[in-house]
């Protein structure tokens, strides 16, 4: 396997130009998002989806000024993307094997296999993958698998004019990000923090991680995402207990107090023993066939 490749999105230098959204659409030939005016700052794609594989979020933060005027104190802009998790829920739950892990340790849907079951959609703790209804299949960022195989960097990273989106070997990106956070903090920007970089988080670390300037939920990201398949043993244990309980309850209904048994409760094991007259419809037909 080749080296694990990733994205480091440094939102502190994002200028909200959306070149990444456009480049992604162009290269991957994605359909439009519906040209919706969201009335949420300059955001008009809302969130990641089947046809939106890069989404630029705009957050205008206001601080009440002394003269009573609410001025915009700062803008936060961030280009969101599939996290290509180390432990990817979408990949875990995909029943057809359409989702697979590539030689670059990224997570990609094979569109010729996907049957559109939709299980990956609510499984993703980041709300990334979605089904394209007119097409019936699930789609998401491939980290430009085709370009990577050709030795090129993904279209979004290529198009980013400020290097807010950086592409490269994940280890290298992580150490670069540590340095960047340390420098920002030294410059007095205490709020700078990394998101998704730690292999000890609930998804085993993301292949696409971020430098944020506020809490993750402000950007629409889950503060503590977890791959729910890690709880599968417990889930099956409880289901097993329920299955055994149900089987026990059904058995009780048939073998329990005589009153429950109805007219055929005479003999527990084969109520028709020695009682040929008590056969049902099928029984008497069998007798007639002799």
């Amino acid at each position, binding site marked *: 396997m080749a080296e694990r490749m990733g994205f480091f999105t440094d939102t502190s230098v994002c200028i909200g130009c959306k070149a990444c959204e456009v480049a992604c659409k162009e290269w991957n030939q994605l359909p439009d998002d519906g040209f919706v005016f969201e009335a949420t700052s300059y955001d008009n794609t809302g969130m990641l989806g089947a046809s939106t594989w890069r989404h630029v979020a705009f957050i205008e933060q206001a601080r009440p000024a002394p003269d009573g005027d609410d001025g915009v104190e700062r803008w936060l802009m961030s280009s969101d993307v599939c996290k290509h998790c180390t432990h990817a829920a979408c990949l875990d739950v995909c029943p057809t094997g359409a989702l697979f892990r590539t030689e670059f340790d990224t997570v990609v849907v094979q569109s010729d296999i996907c049957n559109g079951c939709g299980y990956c959609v609510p499984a993703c703790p980041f709300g990334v993958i979605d089904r394209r209804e007119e097409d019936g299949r699930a789609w998401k960022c491939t980290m430009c698998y085709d370009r990577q195989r050709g030795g090129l960097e993904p279209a979004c990273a290529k198009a980013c004019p400020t290097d807010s989106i950086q592409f490269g070997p994940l280890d290298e990106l992580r150490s670069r990000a540590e340095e960047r956070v340390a420098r920002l903090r030294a410059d007095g920007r205490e709020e700078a923090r990394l998101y998704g970089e730690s292999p000890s988080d609930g998804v085993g670390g993301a292949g696409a991680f971020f430098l944020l300037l506020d809490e993750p939920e402000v950007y629409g990201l889950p503060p503590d995402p977890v791959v729910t398949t890690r709880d599968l043993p417990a889930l099956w244990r409880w289901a097993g207990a329920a299955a055994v309980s149900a089987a026990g309850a059904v058995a009780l209904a048939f073998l329990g107090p005589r009153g429950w048994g109805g*007219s055929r409760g005479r003999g527990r094991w084969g109520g028709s023993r020695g009682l040929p007259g008590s056969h049902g419809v099928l029984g008497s037909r069998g007798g007639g066939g002799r």
Partner: protein
Amino acid sequence: MTRERAVVPEAEFRSYYGRPVIKPPIWHEPHMPTYLYLGGMSGVSSMMAVMARLTGRDRLAGTARVAAAAGAAFGAALLAAELGRPERFLNMLRIFKPTSPMSVGSWILAAQGGLSAAALVGPLDGASPGGLPDVLPGVRTGGPDGPLAGVLRPLGDAALLASGVTGPLTATYTAVLVADTAVPAWHEAYRELPFLFAGSAMAAAGAVSMLGTPRAHAGPARAVAVLGAAMETVAGEAMERRLGFLGEPYRTGRAGRLMRTARALTAGGGLLAVVAGRSRTLTALSGLALTAGSLCTRFGILEAGRASAADPKYTVVPQRRRLDAARERQDS
């Protein structure tokens, strides 16, 4: 859990313009919840058919066999229709993948569908279907003929016995399927959901066999229905209590209305089943109420999942609390 947890601290909670963090389940109505009902009904009907066969209750066994096979067949058809690419439904059996409850479930359903259909051939045999064949030592053979008259009956009985294993799995794996998602009201309910589903399935299967079997032969079906209604009611109550704040989606809006209706129908139908033995009218009322209750439960579960995914507070608040608790533990 505690009273404090039931209070939503709106002030602490931040989001991106109130947008959801996760995607809601995209499964359709009526396909997905109706499948949950049919799959559960089929699974428990198989268990009932096995028990009825073992105890020589042929009329009840016949009804339960047909219910099991029909439920699995129609359920599978609904699942195929639910796919974005229905023509590719066989891709479900392309691999076996233990990490995917849907893959495991597809194999369970395939086995349940095949076995419950194969079990139908048993009663077609010319020999009497009064008991199990000699292959099980200590258990008598049925029918006045004594020895086996054909091959259909042993084949059908073998399939029926095997469906006694796939049945309970069919009735409960769907709880694992929905709980293994990022949907907060589903995942956090993983302890009680299987019991809720199993109870709902028992009530549904009991109801079908009550309605499809002469009353004199339907005693055990009524008992299954009563026990199922009790299990569903207790599991549902326990779930909502333990979930606290995350139980809200089960209590409010359309999901709340469906779950309350389900609770009333199930409890009412269960109580009626206790006394319905002698009356045709009461049996019909009870069976219909239990069927409607089980369906309402399944539609309510889907709706509650959607509601809990659509509001970011259900995703953000518990995760933020978890982080804060971990931080406090680290500091102390």
